[in-house]
């Protein structure tokens, strides 16, 4: 037990909490019954204030055992295991995660709290779709839950930002793979309209698809993009069939870069170099799982490049009918001279039943923005307004600045969530800095 200063991956708001390492359900239950404010924290990869709790208790689970994988690919893992640890066990046996976010450095518990999505959401949905069952310690007791057993609590927990309790073990259905390679098609587009129309028509032919968009170009080149789409390579697609787990990162950012290193000028230059170095058109190029799915995991502590002030990530989704909002948002950014690194554009498939789950059928755009420009807070408030009025919403796992009013408007099923939370947490002891900021504690 120790007092620790915690922040999210964006390194913005910081607060001090008592950190407790827990390794059994009874230990967790004991903490929840003695501490008045609690939240779980995995590897701290949510960008904002979701896994910190000023003056409260932050629980870190040591329950990270990876069980044996049955012949259907079903495995039971401790929620404290990272996706990296899980992949280390399952890839050599020919299994892969059914859904993986852009980093392997998140825990299974964190993946559930944020109901994470990957490049295959348009085909496979979010993480929750592949969870068969889980164990959770809530303030009112321990339970085994699944879509069939207390489905209400199961779905409230999926995307529930850890506010229903502490998940301890998870039973997950994995995806069969024959090799550790992905066959990737890469295509360059000189503007946003072209890439969006290609994605609308063609994404359904690929399991994985994502576009990297340059938000700093204007006019005819507005939103120029590189689209990468891929499929797992079959055994007969490659010369040497191998099943190796990704290697740990060799590079690391050793100290905080100076504030403002990533500014409009340097980011523009980076985006330019990156666009020019991407192939115009390349088909079925074999790539490793690590380089295709987790490019940023190649450099440890890359968030330090943003300097001490940190950065925010802004990710929103809008329904299919509001695809114009994506364009307007990028126009807004490119004309405001706010530095924004390569943005990630994706198509989403159907939503999960979770009342706070983020994805909805349509488009999602994610932006990394360094703290600094005085116009940035207002610019993002304007984007909130636009996203909300288009029927869309902002992703809580990335959020560090939304207002409670906008949160409520964007997540119309918030009251359903709070009702279930109140049932399992009548004393409101599950909370977080994010929950306090967005009024999700319950009353």
């Amino acid at each position, binding site marked *: 037990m120790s007092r620790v200063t915690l922040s999210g991956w964006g390194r913005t708001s910081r607060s001090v909490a008592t950190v407790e390492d827990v390794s059994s359900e009874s230990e967790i239950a004991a903490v929840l019954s003695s501490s008045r404010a609690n939240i779980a924290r995995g590897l701290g990869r949510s960008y904002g204030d979701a896994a910190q709790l000023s*003056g409260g208790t932050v629980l870190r689970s040591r329950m990270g055992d990876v069980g044996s994988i049955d012949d259907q690919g079903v495995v039971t893992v401790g929620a404290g295991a990272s996706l990296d640890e899980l992949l280390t066990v399952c890839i050599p046996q020919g299994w892969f995660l059914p859904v993986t976010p852009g980093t392997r450095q998140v825990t299974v518990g964190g993946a559930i709290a944020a109901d994470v999505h990957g490049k295959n959401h348009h085909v496979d949905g979010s993480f929750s779709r592949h969870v068969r069952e889980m164990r959770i310690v809530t303030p009112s007791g321990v339970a085994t839950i699944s879509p069939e057993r207390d489905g209400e609590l199961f779905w409230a927990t999926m995307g529930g930002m850890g506010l229903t309790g502490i998940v301890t073990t998870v039973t997950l259905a994995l995806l069969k793979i024959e090799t550790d390679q992905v066959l990737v098609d890469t295509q360059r587009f000189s503007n946003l309209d072209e890439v969006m129309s290609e994605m609308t028509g063609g994404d359904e032919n690929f399991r994985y698809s994502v576009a990297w968009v340059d938000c700093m170009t204007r006019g005819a080149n507005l939103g120029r993009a590189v689209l990468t789409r891929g499929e797992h390579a079959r055994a007969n697609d490659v010369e040497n069939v191998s099943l190796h787990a990704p290697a740990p990162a060799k590079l690391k950012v050793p100290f905080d870069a100076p504030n403002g290193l990533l500014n409009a000028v340097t980011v523009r230059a980076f985006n330019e170099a990156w666009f020019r170095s991407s192939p115009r058109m390349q088909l079925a190029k074999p790539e490793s799982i690590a380089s295709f799915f987790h490019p940023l995991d190649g450099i440890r502590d890359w968030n330090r490049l943003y300097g001490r002030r940190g950065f925010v990530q802004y990710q929103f989704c809008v329904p299919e009918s509001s695809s114009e909002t994506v364009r307007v948002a990028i126009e807004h950014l490119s004309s405001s001279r706010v530095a924004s690194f390569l943005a990630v554009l994706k198509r989403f498939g159907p939503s999960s039943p979770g009342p706070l789950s983020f994805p909805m059928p349509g488009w999602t755009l994610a932006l990394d923005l360094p703290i600094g420009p005085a116009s940035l807070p207002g610019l993002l408030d304007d984007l909130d307004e636009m996203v909300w009025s288009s029927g869309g919403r902002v992703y809580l796992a990335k959020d560090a600045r939304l207002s409670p009013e906008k949160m409520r408007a964007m997540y119309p099923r918030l009251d359903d969530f709070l009702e279930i939370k109140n049932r399992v947490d009548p004393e409101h002891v599950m909370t977080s800095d994010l929950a306090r900021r967005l009024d999700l504690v319950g009353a």
Partner: protein
Amino acid sequence: MENAFGQPQSVVVLAGTSDIARAITKRLCAARAHTVVLAGRNQQLLDEARSEALAYGARQVDVVIFDARDPSNAERTVNESFEKVRGTVDLVVIAVGLLGDQEHIENDAALVGDMVTVNFTWPVAALAQIRNLLVRQGSGRIVVLSSVAAVRVRRAKYLYGGAKAGLDRLCIGLADSLEGTGVSLQLVRPGHVRSKMTVGAKEPPFATGVDDVADDVLRGLAERTPIIWSPPILRYLFFVLRHLPAPLWRKVTNEVDR
């Protein structure tokens, strides 16, 4: 809770009726602040500031009355203000201060004592209790209004500048003591600010308005700048002025204050 841009949701403003404090409060309410406690001496001015905060978007604004000439009430004032927030206090602004008319009070020991009490002793006593409460909370920010007059004290304002200098230096040490507690303290050093406190005074170069100071403070909150100069150029100007030989310094300030 404050957001990634250091925009608080709950704010306590000590001397919430000062022009600078009101300009800051307005901007905070327009951003994310929904709960505000304004502490001050004058009920009527507090009511005005309260309506202003509500008009700019606050949902709940309470007022607390105190007199900064009596440090024995500092702890009670802080406690009462925190209780009215009913929850996490994200930001405390200390704008307590008195410029005074030095020429007329410098020979009166009692009035000189009051100057030092209002500008130094009361804020320091309040800070002690604010520190206690915020450290226990594990988060929160403190913004203390200092002045460039504290950086190098000049003849025409030595009472005000001297007392502010004490507060300014003390706060730098206090800020260091807060490392690792989740709480932080930021100093604001404005130049000459056009406000009711300075009305009629001769304007030195780089004078600024209360709205500009408030903009600089909001930006400083987002960037977590330990010392917020307003206007920002004064940081460099005072780097030079601070090291001027005394005769030259007197000459420059005599010119400015004449």
